[in-house]
């Protein structure tokens, strides 16, 4: 990718491995971020569960999506 412009559509130029990483990033953002209409629809679960649920509900056909589930710990830098 070059220049400061947005690269669209990202998937068209990404090798497969990069696309998988980008899909995880996409899901993470689209399903956990962004403006929500009803704040209370946020599931009371750790971020990872939300993405997992999102994956099952939304992307059931994408069997190649992998995610590092080795550590459920969510820590900051402190």
């Amino acid at each position, binding site marked *: 990718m070059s*220049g*400061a*412009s*947005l690269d*669209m*559509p*990202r*998937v068209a130029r990404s090798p497969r491995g990069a696309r998988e*990483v*980008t*899909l995880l*990033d*996409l*899901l*993470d*953002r*689209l*399903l*956990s*971020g*962004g*403006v*929500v*209409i009803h*704040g209370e629809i*946020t599931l009371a679960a*750790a*971020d990872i569960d*939300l993405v997992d649920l999102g994956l099952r*509900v*939304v*992307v059931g*056909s*994408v069997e190649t999506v992998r995610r*590092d*589930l*080795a*550590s459920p*710990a*969510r*820590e*900051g*830098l402190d």
Partner: protein
Amino acid sequence: MAVYLYAICDAHAEPPSGTGIDGAALRMLRCAGLSALVSDVRDSERSPTEDDLWEHESVVERLMSAHDLLPARFGTSLIDDAAVRDFLDGRSAELHAGLRRVAGALELGIRAGWPVAETGHDDGHDGPRAGGAYLTARVNLQKRARALARHVDAALTPLCRERLIRVLGGPNMAMTGAFLIDRGAVDRVRARVSDLDAEMMNVELACTGPWPPYSFTGGGDSSR
């Protein structure tokens, strides 16, 4: 007719070219000094697909190339146009504040991993001490991931407005980060990430994006 929401902008934004999900026309609804980019929902019964995710993202990014915006969470639809205007009106203070926060900015993502899967072991362990050694290895992995995250954070914080760092501490993925940066700083931040990647042996640092500022809308998971 239900409407699907893509993003919120200020009052003067025009819809981007092209269509939205299911080829529906993109249009702006206006209220309270804000604009909401929407399209009609053609089939409210069908399940969302991966293609819909990319379509949503494509629409938002096309709009973002011309306007600062707050992206909506995927799958956000309202019952009709009036409901969208009510939403803009009712949340106008928060939405205006949100637009100020991201004015002139984009989001970049960082992923840091160990390309050769790290076990955290300093040497091989078998037999009855293996369990304790495994736990020690996992703790070591967490420590290394945190140290890496601090290093990346220190290097990139001067170049960004805000950042959210998540330490994962797994054998493959050490950390992820979201950085809110000035639009003009994209190349500079990518170059810095590239330098960091080159500096560190057995760490693979990758930049994704630029993204719409999903992580900095204030309306999503507060735990991010």
